[in-house]
């Protein structure tokens, strides 16, 4: 139980949110990638978050959580878009290509949400740093 622990918590949140920003960037970059083979097409990826249990603290009956981590990254199972485009170099024998199932609007919303969460973590860190500095200066003035 100390203010220092907050840095770990906020730091883990920042790491998790930056992973989310990374997947979003990857999704947006691959939004238009296409392939003639449906199994090889890029599928939208999303990180799944999980709260990290702090076993040491749980033993002492303190707050039993210590931040957040990325449990896994899942691929979207949404249907791919099939497009008839025989001039495409990747087109299959029927002239079809499959385009990735990235939803650009969804990804933009994800990006905003991730950056807001990141910002609030930064804010928490800054505030806690100020509190710590003030506590260190206790009784000086």
């Amino acid at each position, binding site marked *: 139980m100390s*203010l220092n622990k907050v840095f770990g*918590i906020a730091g883990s949140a920042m790491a998790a949110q930056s992973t989310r920003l990374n997947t979003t960037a990857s999704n947006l970059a691959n939004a238009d990638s296409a392939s003639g083979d449906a199994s090889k097409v890029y599928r939208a990826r999303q990180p799944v*978050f999980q709260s990290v249990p702090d076993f040491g603290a749980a033993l002492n*009956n303190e*707050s039993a959580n210590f931040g957040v981590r990325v449990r896994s990254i899942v691929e979207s199972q949404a249907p791919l878009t099939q497009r008839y485009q025989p001039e495409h170099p990747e087109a299959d024998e029927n002239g079809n290509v499959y385009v990735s199932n990235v939803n650009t609007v969804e990804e933009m919303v994800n990006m905003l949400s991730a950056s807001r969460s990141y910002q*609030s973590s930064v804010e928490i860190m800054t505030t806690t740093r100020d509190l710590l500095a003030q506590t260190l200066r*206790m009784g000086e003035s």
Partner: protein
Amino acid sequence: MDIDPFGNHAKALSLRTQRNELLANNLANADTPGYKARDIDFRAAMRAAETGGGNLRMATTDAQHIPTSPGRAPGLDPAVAYRIPLQPSVDGNTVEADVEQANYAENVMGYQASLMFINRKIRGLTLAIRGGS
């Protein structure tokens, strides 16, 4: 003579620190599916700390009873409770970022207020020791 010149502010600082950690954890898990936001009832925790009722110890009524050690700072064992969400979400997460941020701001203000009381008290005591010079 007052034994504890800082009154309850030292306890308040400790509780505020603990609450700060919980609220930071809530905000860190704002996007975690199934996470339940938690908080301390500060008023109840403070009252428990004042009366010493926050730390239940077994009574020793016989000389041969072994006293149980509190193990932690006396009276600083606040009950952590789950927050009741205003708008529950489908993924089971009960963190409402705005509520948490408001609580965080309030908690930080409370911490700084306690810190200021302690600082002023120290200044007053120093003044008294130096005889006003």
